[in-house]
């Protein structure tokens, strides 16, 4: 604090303080204003919100704050939308198992109904991306696999690898494998940008293009091993490992056997 107090007579101190105060007032107002506006919905919705709020208070509020306003260790959830909740909680990433670099995909802790209630609650705080319905994610009908592959290689492969197997990012973060992701989850990830992933807005990647990408990923998930064992589809490292173990190992074994037989 002494460091800060040095500047208390600085000529910009007054304007800065004013800006800060305005910002705080605005934020507080929007938070306070958000809840009552959405609780004017139908009775069923209100029960879902209440149910979601109860789950939130029990399982999430210790990090995300009692009103989802966020804290020092977790971001605010106001305005992240239902899609974000469905993705993070539905894939088991949230609640986090530990405070590691990145939440990993694991068995979901909540039932689909509980996830839906949580999503309704968080969506009630402020508007955000909604969960895409099955009608939106009609990838099989509206997508184009080859075009999706091009888009995937241009936008996704640099982190998720050429075959969607995932890859490393800096400081222990990583782009996860997409082999277990469902079409809806992929769509949600693109519109919400979870963790290190950027948001691919509809201006950058149009909804039709998103469906093409999903169609390509689904085809990659079902890609047959055309040339024999795929060895992880991570490139030449596993190939090098195989030739240095099985390949030369077999041949040296045979060489030893040949040289022994001659005696």
């Amino acid at each position, binding site marked *: 604090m002494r460091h800060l107090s040095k500047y208390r007579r600085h000529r910009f101190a007054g304007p800065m303080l004013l800006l800060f105060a305005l910002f705080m007032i605005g934020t507080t107002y929007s938070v306070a204003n958000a809840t009552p506006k959405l609780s004017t919905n139908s009775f069923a919705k209100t029960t879902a919100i209440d149910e979601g709020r109860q789950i939130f208070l029990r399982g999430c509020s210790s990090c995300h704050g009692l009103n989802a306003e966020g804290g020092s260790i977790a971001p605010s959830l106001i305005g992240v939308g239902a899609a974000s909740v469905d993705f993070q909680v539905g894939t088991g990433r949230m609640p986090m198992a530990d405070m590691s670099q990145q939440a990993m995909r694991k068995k979901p802790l909540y039932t689909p109904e509980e996830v839906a209630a949580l999503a309704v609650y968080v969506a009630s705080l402020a508007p955000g991306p909604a969960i895409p319905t099955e009608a939106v994610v009609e990838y099989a009908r509206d997508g184009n696999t080859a075009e999706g592959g091009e888009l995937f290689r241009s936008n996704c492969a*640099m982190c998720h690898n050429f075959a969607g197997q995932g890859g490393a990012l800096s400081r*222990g973060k990583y782009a996860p494998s997409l082999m277990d992701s469902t079409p809806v989850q992929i769509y949600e990830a693109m519109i919400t940008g979870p963790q290190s992933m950027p948001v691919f807005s509809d201006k950058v990647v149009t909804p039709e293009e998103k469906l093409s990408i999903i169609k*390509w990923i689904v085809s990659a998930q079902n890609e047959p091993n*055309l040339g024999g*064992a795929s060895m992880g589809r991570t490139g030449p490292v596993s190939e090098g490992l195989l030739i240095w173990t099985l390949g*030369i190992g077999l*041949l040296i074994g045979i060489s030893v056997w040949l040289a022994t037989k001659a005696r």
Partner: protein
Amino acid sequence: MKKSEKVVGTVANYVDERTGAAKWLKKNLNKVFPDHWSFMLGEIALYSFVILLLTGVFLTFWFDPSQREVLYNGSYEPLSGIKMSAAYASTLDISFDVRGGLLMRQIHHWAALLFMVAIVAHLMRVFFTGAFRKPREFNWILGIGLLTLGIVEGFLGYSLPDDLLSGTGIRIAEAIIQSIPVVGSYLAFFAFGGPFPGEAFIPRIFTVHVLLLPGIFLALITAHLMLVWYQKHTQYPGPGRTEKNVVGYPLMPVYMAKAGGFFFIVFGVTAFIAAVASINPIWLYGPYTPAQISAGSQPDWYMGWLDGLVRMAPPWESYIFGHTISWNILIPGLIVPGILFTAMALYPFIESWLTGDKREHHILDRPRNAPTRTAIGAMSLTFILVTLMTGGNDLLATHFSLTINQITWASRIGVFVLPPLAFVITKRLCLSLQRADRDLILHGRETGRLVRLPHGEFVEVHEPLSAEKAYTLASHEQIPALDLPLEDGAGVRRPKALRAKLRARMSAAVTEQIPKPTSEDLKEIEHH
């Protein structure tokens, strides 16, 4: 004499009277080769080269080395209608629309990996046994040349299909060319016929890959084998084996059958791996465009150490006289490999300078009996292993839950610390093994049989070694350190005394040994 024998005899006689082949054949077919599994590593390299030629010819029938843009209309659905180069499209056709094409491609690529593995394994055998010593220094240099060309040839083959991975490799090759101070940009323009990627590079490297380098390979391999033939093969120490003889089996019929059979074994193993394990699935990588990149883009293993060096290099760059010098590429991409390969090629001369040993050697060393050489080998392998693992740093990070940043720092420190550590540990291990050998010769083998002597003492019975075994363990000679006089007879310092002092110190380190038992030692033991 049977009729058929008579016919064969007449034909052979006809040929012999006109060519004189019988005498030459008799001499050469009776040539003796020693027998040891480690002598077959070079054979594996030779046979994988033959496999590469055979499968490579097959691939050229359908491969179109052109960067002309085409629309893909082949069998692989996820790429249909995509714009790509003719090179990539024809590689897809080989994989999916040519009968047996994918298998041939996979045999070709696996054989290429095996070729390099066998060369490196053969190199290790030659190094650790001291087979490079006089008179084989030239053959050692030829081998280093073959290794270097193998890396280049493999890289060009990896680059030809023009998929996303190979394009990424070419991009890095371009960066390495550009990093050469002053002339780099011009050289890159020259190689690519204009700005990257252009349309000239793939046709050019195709010619180099299928014509120029295989031709040089054939010539060098022939010279390599002719020198082996002329200088005779080395052999491991043992009773009856001297610097003047070769103990083994004649070429005809034993080695003809063995080598011929071994070729088919190598071909069989390669074909087996190619049939069950996918390699370079180019259809998954997609066509190359400079705007795209995949996570985890790695070169084939024999380039992995180079990639690792580049990955661990700190981002150093300087701007001098209007030229940018990218030390971060120049040092790991050109300077370090240049130093490594030069040192490797010169090693036989360096060692003989330090030991003062200028005699011919046909009996191989057991690695423990040349502790410093073995330690240098272990040090080099550790260096390569650290850099190779760094080449796969992103896969290490994802598969072992590490962070790239930790791996980068671990490798930056490890590449300086671990090789010297390996040197010290290996040298001490070798000296310990020498001590064990000494004990074995002097005291014999421990039988585990305890005997109580009449006065109550317990002793373990040691069984003396057989004469053959003892000879094998003790037949090597131990070269003393160089004794270089620093002053002349009148006590005046010689010119170049500093150099002589350095050489003497290094020589003392190189020749450090545990004295092997002398005949006096043995007599004294027997006296007890």
